[in-house]
């Protein structure tokens, strides 16, 4: 048997339990060890990557969802960090009428990605002197993610993480967003109203601060628009979401 035939045969054994044509003593025992290790490792990877989701679903439902994911999505990356990235989509398929499950998985996935996202040096306050705010462009930190949210997954996550009884799942009065970032080395998140989420999306798409103010003036009026823009900026600076501000191209 060629090496590639052996390797594809063992792949098919691990992913589809198609027994390879091996001439090996005690092949069944050896194949079982590899199959058990493969599945146990992926199960452990998902459980360690999604502890809050695991707590929310319970052991049996989590194990069933993980087994479905392992059957449908064999790993492809060299890093196990990547294996859990597709799990939220599997959960949305499995729980179409429980949006908090998919939201919770997506939140936990984004927190894990923020944990290992590229570092970003803190914004130098001196760089803000003499800035032309109408033309100022804000570069967001690489560890920032915006997720759409239709449920109270954020409140559920926080309660479970603090060892408290989580609230019942609820739909949000209107679809919102969850902002995930890293504060120092610690992932953080907060639920956003739609207007702030839109403002951050606009910045990500290259909108400058003057245009952002104009957008808010158009929606909120001459008085409230600039005030809201100022309060957003202050909050984003406090949260450490801004990597750089410049009135030159970034």
């Amino acid at each position: 048997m060629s090496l590639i035939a052996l390797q594809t045969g063992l792949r098919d054994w691990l992913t589809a339990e198609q027994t390879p044509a091996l001439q090996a003593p005690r092949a069944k025992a050896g194949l079982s060890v590899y199959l058990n290790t493969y599945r146990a490792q992926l199960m452990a990877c998902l459980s360690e990557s999604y502890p809050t989701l695991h707590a929310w679903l319970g052991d049996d439902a989590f194990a069933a969802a993980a087994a479905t994911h392992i059957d449908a999505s064999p790993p492809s990356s060299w890093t196990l960090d990547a294996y859990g990235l597709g799990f939220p989509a599997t959960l949305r398929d499995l729980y179409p009428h429980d949006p908090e499950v998919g939201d919770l998985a997506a939140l936990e996935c984004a927190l894990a990605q923020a944990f290992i996202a590229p570092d970003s040096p803190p914004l130098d306050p001196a760089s803000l002197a003499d800035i032309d705010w109408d033309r100022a462009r804000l570069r967001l930190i690489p560890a920032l993610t915006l997720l759409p949210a239709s449920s109270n997954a954020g409140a559920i996550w926080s309660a479970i993480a603090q060892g408290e009884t989580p609230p019942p799942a609820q739909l949000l009065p209107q679809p919102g967003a969850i902002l995930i970032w890293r504060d120092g080395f610690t992932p953080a998140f907060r639920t956003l109203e739609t207007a702030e989420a839109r403002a951050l999306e606009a910045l990500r798409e290259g909108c400058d601060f003057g245009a952002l103010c104009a957008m808010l003036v158009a929606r909120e009026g001459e008085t409230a628009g600039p005030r809201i823009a100022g309060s957003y900026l202050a909050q984003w600076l406090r949260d450490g979401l801004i990597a750089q501000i410049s009135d030159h191209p970034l």
Partner: protein
Amino acid sequence: MAASHRFGLGLRKPHYGDFLDGDAPVAVDFVEVISENFMVPGGRPLDVLRRVRERHPVALHGVSMSLGSADGLDADYLRRLRSLVDAVEPLFVSDHLSWSRIGGFNSHDLLPLPYTLEALEVVCANIHQAQEALGRTMLIENPSSYLTLDGEMSEWAFLDQICARTGCDLLLDVNNIVVSAANHGFDALAYLAGIPAQRVRQIHLAGHSQGRDLLIDTHDKPVPPPVWALYRRALERTGPVATMIERDDDIPPLADLLEELDLARQIATQPERESA
């Protein structure tokens, strides 16, 4: 530099505080980390590694290079490992004589190779590519395995061949010899006699478990007597060599592992008294 005994431990999360926060560095000569855990863009893992490196020499031990893949190595993996190597300036860079990846599938397990001439060509070509990409010699570790595949040579002859052809060195896992000797029915002393002992730069010690039919390399127990006994015999062949204990499950307090490491020190430095 003359060869010398050095004694280290694998760095695992439950012991980060011990390694980073103590007034004095932990009493080890080096620490070994799993390379892939630190091949990340940023965040706390790299900060931990940077701070550990300020206190200790670090060995990088990989589990995902997949040196036995018939369809070659992953270029992205090699680039990221090279970045880590450049940042850490490690004592050793090692990975296993095994494969994990084929055709876009990655098992995340150390799967066995048949010891054939074809596999030898593949492994040697991959080691050449890796050593070129990393700009240094690698250490190749003998695996534990659970399938006795048809081959044209023994595992130790295969290791001898890859050292001769690629210039790589060896990471001898004594526990893996014990496990594979039991599973495949070979003589562990014949294994030690057959490897190019002068190429062994590092030794791993660990524990294993008895499965239903086979011994399993679980790293969840203290180093057992048969592994200590074979370690003593291995040192007779290799001479002084960097030795470390791997513990990946049911991880005890660091003090327990340091005590275990003292046993390795005693065996390595007082072999006559220990074997009396």
